[in-house]
């Protein structure tokens, strides 16, 4: 695998079109990510269907650029408006905006940007080191382990989801059930089509994905019309911005700690940068000798830690995505869809059959961060000015792009109706506090779950015992049961303390 890295790096740097594509992706990501309410997931959702006509290299270059740009740009909205551009930058508001409000806008942006870039690059190194190891390990997995991993993923997401665990599991079961609609190899025919001819091929995952994530967010974004106005009046200074680099290096322990948190949280299925950002901030406050100064905009580590962590999650999230085919967060869910659109199935075999593709993903990840750093220096004023675009134009334009993206996949209106239906369902789910991610993950992993279950039963001659007798499968299912019983364990643990 590693033998592909250097040739791929040289190939990327000798191909101006690839470099331009990454730069365009990063620029688009920085713009979308900076605008509050527009997340990296939405940016990728808009782009994935449009990459259908592109070759693998161009589409991945564009998508990796958008992914890296959008996650890192969330800090701009947090610092300038006190509204996170993406959920991944929620904790950055806590000290970023107070620091900017004290007349140190450039310093706050500099701390955030450099921490993001260093965190992202370090997580990329972790990705390059960890992913091949995990892939080698996963090569020995049989259908029992693969099925156990899918079950583990669902329950991890459910147990880590904020709010009701039952709702999260129900949403996952709902998604898996929907994935069964249409033609199935295991049956050799169609199921659950209700007599609708368009359902013969199943529910197209991309319009469903785009609808469920984008439309609810856009509907809710209309609440913010006319409210996103910066109260900061000072001008941006590039010199102050660049001076923040040295300051970031003065808190390198915080930076490394936050990066480690980010990578670990990123690897956990379904959690992503949102949690790592908040977790790194709270851990930094716990370790700090002056925790009372957190929230005042005085401490550099209060911006460095959450920003390093959310970008570090990106490399972490790519590890299970590439090695096991399990997305680490909603944005990597979109990247998986893009790979599937190009008939590439993520998983351990990807590292054997298409090691050059994996190397290309690794390289574009680093190059995207390089372009991110460059574009921040030359274009941060433009990125800040994007925040002034009125929301009423943004939401309607984005929905139009969602419709086009869904339509061009197969040139059929059924996909547009799927987008609308899942959009309304997603909105209803958000109102009813149902997590959307388990449903979509269920739709993506459902066919894999059924196929692995079928193989496990066949290879086990009808017996389910190998799930318990094979050590890795048993260990994964054991951890899954512990996750399920976590609320009960907590209750028992607390009882003696109360008495």
């Amino acid at each position: 695998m590693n033998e592909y890295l250097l040739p791929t790096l040289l190939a990327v740097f000798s191909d101006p079109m690839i470099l331009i594509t990454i730069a365009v992706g990063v620029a688009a990501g920085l713009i979308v990510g900076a605008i509050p309410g527009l997340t990296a997931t939405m940016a990728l959702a808009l782009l994935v269907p449009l990459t259908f006509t592109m070759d693998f290299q161009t589409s991945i270059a564009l998508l990796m650029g958008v992914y890296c740009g959008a996650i890192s740009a969330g800090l701009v909205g947090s610092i300038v408006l006190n509204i996170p551009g993406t959920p991944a930058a929620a904790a950055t508001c806590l000290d970023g905006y107070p620091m900017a409000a004290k007349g140190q806008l450039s310093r706050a942006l500099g701390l955030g940007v450099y921490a993001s870039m260093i965190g992202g690059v370090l997580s990329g190194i972790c990705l390059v080191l960890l992913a091949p190891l995990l892939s080698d390990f996963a090569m020995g997995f049989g259908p029992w382990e693969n099925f156990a991993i899918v079950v583990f993923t669902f329950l991890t997401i459910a147990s880590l989801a904020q709010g009701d665990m039952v709702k999260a599991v129900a949403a996952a079961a709902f998604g898996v059930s929907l994935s069964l609609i249409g033609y199935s190899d295991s049956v050799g025919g169609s199921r659950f089509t209700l007599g609708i001819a368009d359902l013969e091929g199943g529910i197209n995952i991309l319009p469903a994905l785009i609808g469920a994530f984008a439309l609810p967010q856009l509907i809710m974004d209309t609440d913010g019309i006319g409210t996103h106005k910066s109260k900061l009046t000072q001008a941006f200074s590039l010199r102050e911005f660049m001076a923040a680099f040295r300051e970031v290096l003065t808190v390198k322990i915080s930076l490394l700690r936050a990066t480690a948190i980010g990578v670990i949280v990123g690897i956990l299925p379904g959690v992503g940068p949102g949690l790592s950002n908040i977790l790194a901030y709270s851990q930094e406050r716990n370790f700090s000798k002056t925790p009372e100064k957190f929230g005042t905009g005085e401490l550099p580590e209060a911006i460095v830690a959450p920003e390093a962590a959310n970008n570090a999650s990106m490399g972490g999230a790519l590890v299970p995505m590439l090695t096991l085919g399990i997305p680490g967060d909603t944005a990597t869910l979109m990247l998986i869809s893009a790979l599937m659109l190009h008939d590439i199935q993520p998983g351990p075999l990807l590292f054997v059959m298409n090691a050059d593709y994996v190397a290309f993903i690794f390289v574009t990840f680093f190059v995207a961060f390089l372009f991110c750093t460059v574009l921040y220096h030359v274009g941060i004023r433009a990125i800040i000015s994007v925040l002034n675009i009125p929301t009423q134009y943004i939401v309607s334009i984005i929905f139009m792009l969602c419709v086009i993206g869904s339509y061009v996949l197969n040139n059929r209106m059924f996909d547009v109706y799927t987008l609308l239906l899942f959009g309304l369902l997603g909105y209803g789910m958000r109102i009813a506090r149902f997590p959307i991610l388990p449903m979509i993950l269920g739709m993506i992993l459902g066919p894999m779950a059924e196929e692995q279950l079928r193989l496990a039963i066949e290879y086990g001659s009808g017996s389910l015992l190998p799930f318990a007798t094979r050590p890795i499968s048993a260990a994964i299912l054991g951890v899954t049961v512990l996750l399920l019983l976590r609320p009960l364990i907590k209750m028992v643990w607390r009882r003696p303390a109360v008495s």
Partner: protein
Amino acid sequence: MKTAENTVIGVMLLVMIALAVQLPGIKSTAAAGQHYIPNTGPILFVGSAVVLFLWLILRGLSRSAPEQEPGQASQVRDIYRPRRLIFMTTSAIYCLVFDVLGFLTASLLYLFLASFLIGGRGRREALIGLVVAAAVVGVTYGIVIYGLESYLPVLDIAGWN
């Protein structure tokens, strides 16, 4: 809050029931294997979904339901915000007429009306909205048709009788 939540759970349960009633009709037309019955996966997944949604509905109806979280009441009030309703309605209509009116007409109307109705409604806003709509539709059309070499629906006036 309860009504909204129960409605959503009810809709999802109905979808699952619609799938569940088709379970007996699943028959294998291929040699799926010696031990695997083609219904196993669907029964497991659809069955567990039905059970979980029934549980959620029963829990919602019972007195032991979890108390309302702070902010939930305001979230329900937000459903009826005029801007949200206008945006949802215009977006739904846009999807429905996309094929009939064609991309150019439908998108131009949608972008202009949606931004005008949910944003400011003065003469200046209308003019800006129209210019933005025309520019965005033109650029998007160019990218999709000439850049991506893809197809978008067109208004077929000749076909209207």
